[in-house]
């Protein structure tokens, strides 16, 4: 019965037009909402947010530190974004000790800059292929014997 109705609808010129119009209408709606969802998804995972977050977190950690100190933070998300944008390791987090600035650049387009007010020497290095960010405050600490996950949870690991 259902098959008969469908066939008659398709064979009938008017029925065919109605079905065709509805199909186009549904398809256009679907495309529109898919594009909208894609835009929202892109916005939530935006590079701009991560650059700002990392710059502020690193600056506040430096301001809150005492010399000498080694801080390790989880940088997995930053690392994956920078890898996608082909930003070299040494340009991802740049510290200007003289002016007290931290610049986080994950998109290769300049980045986000945030100042810190303490006057400690700050050195940035990486561990685990860039997934862990090491911030050396004051005199460099040899962290070879220390486990990054232990340090991460104890001295300011950001998960």
């Amino acid at each position: 019965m259902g098959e008969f109705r469908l066939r008659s609808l398709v064979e009938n010129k008017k029925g065919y037009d109605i079905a065709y119009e509805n199909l186009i209408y549904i398809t256009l709606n679907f495309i529109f909402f898919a594009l909208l969802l894609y835009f929202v998804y892109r916005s939530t995972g935006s590079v701009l947010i991560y650059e700002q977050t990392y710059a502020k977190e690193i600056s506040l950690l430096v301001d809150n530190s005492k010399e000498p100190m080694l801080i390790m933070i989880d940088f997995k998300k930053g690392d994956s974004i920078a890898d996608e944008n082909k930003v070299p390791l040494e340009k991802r987090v740049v510290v200007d000790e003289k002016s007290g600035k931290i610049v986080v650049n994950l998109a290769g387009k300049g980045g986000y800059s945030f100042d810190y007010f303490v006057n400690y020497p700050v050195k940035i290095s990486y561990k685990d292929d860039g997934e862990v960010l090491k911030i050396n405050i004051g005199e460099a600490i040899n962290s070879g014997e220390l486990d990054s996950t232990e340090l991460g949870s104890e001295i300011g690991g950001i998960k």
Partner: protein
Amino acid sequence: MNMLINMFNDKKAGERLMVFWWIFVIAVISGGIITAVLIFYSADYEVRNVEAELLYSKVSDCFVKNEEVQTSLFSDEADIIGLCNLNKNQFLKGSKFYFRVSLYDNKGNLVNEKKEGDFSFEKDCQIVLNGVDAKHYPRCALRKEKIFIEDKENGIKQEKQKYLLEILAASNQKGERITALG
């Protein structure tokens, strides 16, 4: 594309109007969602309060060591920025930071005062600390602490005197997006 145009042309006047209505509804929905998402995700993370507290903490740790106020830091020659391990460039004119350390005696008279950074924050902080929420004004941390200082006369320690140490710290740093590394 021609089929779509023909479909539109084949319609009666009322049905054509519905197409425009549909486009209008779609535009309003998408405009609303896009605007909301852009506003939400372009907002800055507010950390000025935390920074003001951190600056207060640094200055306080510098002026009070082992529960004793470092009175030497109040002398005119004392380079507080250097002695407190602060970055000189961050406390120049037009700075984003400010702090003031005031020492009052037990009668409330100002004995000594030291301040660094953008002095205009002093008045702004009075407004903000009175509960006015001004978006572009700095965020401030103000603490008062009762302390005792051993006065010395001719090098001989006298009875401890009661003082009040007031520290005000402020930050108005919002961060900036840069287009290229310099």
